[in-house]
């Protein structure tokens, strides 16, 4: 039995360290450490409520819009208002732009380059994958960066800039879209659709959305072998990535993209045992500090009662990350959770057969690209340039609010309390706080810590490329995790 420390991981957002115990060449225990603490929850104390909209996007450069929307929704909840319809549509478009850009960045820049490593040079698929996906020099990188940059022009029109916009407000957006902006947005979306349909899918988005089970997916991959998605499925089969990073699904989604009083992708929970949509009650969320470098509280607290005071001397602590639990359970969030909870037949089939694993996490993300872009086109068409985009309303001097949103990486929640016109408590639980949480008071390991168990890494832990795949399959955002 040996121990080995892995870090830093790159091609994840922020800082990550993983320590493992290896028994007979396999991981028998894992500890996930988020080694950076900045203290946004402390920074926000005493701020004027609307000023938090300047700070929160800067929690994270890659999920900045998600942070803004969670904050704006928490403030709107405190004010008891709803956004103007145009503002809601514009927020959806900006958020979808960030989420899809993140999925794309993850696939092309973060995840796939690991398969172009020399470690795989004997694989029959290696020459093609190396040519296409090698870090920095692969042909996909420049093509993808160009498509990504042009797609993000959407934020230049609707949010001023990305990352770090102040256009998202509780009552809608400060930006309006003129008739000319509206057609420009539609044209940009068409450009991005063309990239996805020629490079990633070699097929229409609609055909991808209609894939209904694993057999259909395999048959599709045979017919579209040029597609980057098909290349992934091929190497995934050859390396059996569906057996890697496997955990029992215990999924959660806060509901993605508001449409009137509903969501495009529903709110709820999912387990294979229940095999049906389970209710989600945000009152059952607790944060456990027993293994965090945090001043310990009496018992795990709901975020509205949460406290964040760092304490590097905490004896049991091994991460700056807290351990959020839903009704005591470890939860996985992200595109796979979202798409399973939305009961898309392809993911239902994949998850019922093989649980949550590396392959399924990637498939869900790419499916989401195909499912959300047509919705963005719809939202754009619904914009009414001559109607208001932002509803103005006074801020109460005393109130509570919660803002819950689906970021690219999963469920993001902001909980605020306002007293005497100032923020008296601000607590955040980010997607990767769920996925990369440390152990809780019952010593139950977090989702990644469980997903790493049983992974073959060689006796000394030096054949650890599988760890790279498992870690990145979650698309972690470490700066959000601790904030």
């Amino acid at each position, binding site marked *: 039995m040996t121990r080995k420390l892995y870090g830093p991981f790159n091609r994840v957002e922020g800082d990550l360290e993983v320590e493992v115990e290896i028994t007979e060449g396999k991981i028998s225990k894992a500890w996930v450490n988020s080694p950076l603490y900045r203290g946004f929850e402390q920074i926000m*104390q005493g701020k004027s409520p*609307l000023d938090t909209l300047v700070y929160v996007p800067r929690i994270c450069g890659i999920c900045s819009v998600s942070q803004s929307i969670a904050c704006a929704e928490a403030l709107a909840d405190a004010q008891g208002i709803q956004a103007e319809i145009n503002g809601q549509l514009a927020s959806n478009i900006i958020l979808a732009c960030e989420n899809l850009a993140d999925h794309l960045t993850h696939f092309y820049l973060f995840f796939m380059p690991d398969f172009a490593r020399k470690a795989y040079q004997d694989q029959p698929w290696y020459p093609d994958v190396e040519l296409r996906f090698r870090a920095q020099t692969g042909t996909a990188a420049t093509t993808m960066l160009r498509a990504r940059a042009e797609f993000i*022009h959407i934020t230049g029109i609707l949010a*001023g800039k990305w*990352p770090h916009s102040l256009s998202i407000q509780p009552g809608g957006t400060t*930006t309006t879209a003129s008739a000319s902006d509206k057609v420009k947005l539609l044209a940009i979306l068409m450009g991005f659709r063309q990239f996805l349909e020629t490079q990633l899918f070699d097929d229409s988005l609609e055909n991808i959305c209609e894939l209904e089970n694993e057999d259909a997916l395999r048959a599709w991959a045979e017919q579209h072998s040029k597609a980057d998605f098909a290349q992934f499925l091929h190497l995934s089969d050859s390396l059996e990535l569906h057996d890697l990073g496997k955990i029992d699904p215990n999924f959660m989604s806060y509901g993605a993209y508001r449409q009137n009083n509903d969501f495009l992708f529903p709110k709820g929970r999912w387990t294979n045992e229940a095999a049906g949509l389970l209710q989600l009650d945000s009152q059952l969320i607790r944060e456990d500090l027993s293994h965090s470098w945090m001043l310990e509280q009496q018992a795990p607290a709901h975020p509205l009662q949460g406290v964040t005071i760092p304490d590097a001397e905490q004896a049991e602590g091994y991460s700056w990350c807290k351990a959020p639990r839903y009704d005591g359970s470890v939860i996985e969030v992200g595109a796979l959770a979202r798409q399973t909870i939305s009961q898309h037949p392809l993911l239902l089939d994949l998850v019922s057969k093989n649980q949550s694993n590396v392959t399924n996490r990637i498939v869900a993300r790419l499916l989401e690209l195909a499912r959300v872009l047509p919705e963005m086109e719809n939202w754009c068409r619904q914009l009414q340039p*001559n109607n208001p985009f932002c509803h*103005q309303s006074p801020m109460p001097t005393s109130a509570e609010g919660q803002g819950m949103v689906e970021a690219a990486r999963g469920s993001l929640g902001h909980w605020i309390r306002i007293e005497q016109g100032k923020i008296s408590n601000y607590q955040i639980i980010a997607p990767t706080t769920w996925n990369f949480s440390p152990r809780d008071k019952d010593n139950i390991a977090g989702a990644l810590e469980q997903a790493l168990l049983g992974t073959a890494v060689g006796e000394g832990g030096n054949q650890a490329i599988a760890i790279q795949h498992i870690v990145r399959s979650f698309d972690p955002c470490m700066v959000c995790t601790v904030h």
Partner: protein
Amino acid sequence: MFNVLWLQSGGCGGCSISLLNAESPDLLTRFKSADINLLWHPSLSEASTDEFIQLLDKILTGEIHLDALCLEGSVMQGPNGTGRFHMLAGTGKSMMSWLARLAEKADYTLAMGSCAAFGGITAAGNNPGEACGLQYDGKVSGGLLGDIWRSSKGFPVINVAGCPTHPDWVTDVLMQLALGDLTGSDLDELNRPRAYTDHLVHHGCARNEYYEYKASAETLGDVGCMMEHKGCLGTQARADCNTRPWNGSGSCLKGGYPCINCTAPEFEEPRKSFTETPKIAGIPIGLPTDMPKAWFVALASLSKAATPKRLKDNATASHIITPPGQKKERT
């Protein structure tokens, strides 16, 4: 070949994400054109864990020459000066200590974004992380490396400030360094590249006509000038955001919200609300850079008296309601 190492510490990663937005041409093509070799970047490089630590060791032993060390994010000194708020994963050492050693090996050291330059957003509030910049702590020269520190090529830390920083600001300065074009006189008094800080955000602002006539926005999202009521600092902020667009065509002002002067030290604590203009006797505090106050007041009252109806109408609307070219009203 110009070797660049890019590290992140107490920040959000947004300057890297912004960098990936570089276009016409894309980032990798820009670097190639100036023979810039990215030794390592958190979002772009293959090397991870042990491979990366070996790279750092080779830089420290001199086996690999480091032309430019780039830091994104603040230096995390806390708690109590220990640097434990950011230990470089896998090394058991604080990032703060790695940075101090690597800066001695680099021909040039650059702070990418306002956090690395001055402390930035991470130093806001009561600065719980004891965050500072590489060579500034807010407005005070010093920071991690100290006031008199100079790189082996005789440069102070080059502060490519901004929150986030514009992709062009980053690639311009790195490419100029790689070509040997950048001199000390190309930096301003805060060691920011003058290429963008010789300009004001005000330059090229689409709301300039409203500014001229003091036709002011009253709520966020109004079309008018945001200086008088909504806290806009564009007339003081040093950057070219309205002449060098963001994400194709954008800027904060075009996004309908005020400039918060994010290229300046301590922008994170304006001691007022970001979206309100503090005033004394109805006159905004913090007038445009270089403008004598008496002249501003005189000109403002004159121009206010001359404001065309069109601008008055539109200033407080969310879109143009009175277009130009209508019959002139008799006065």
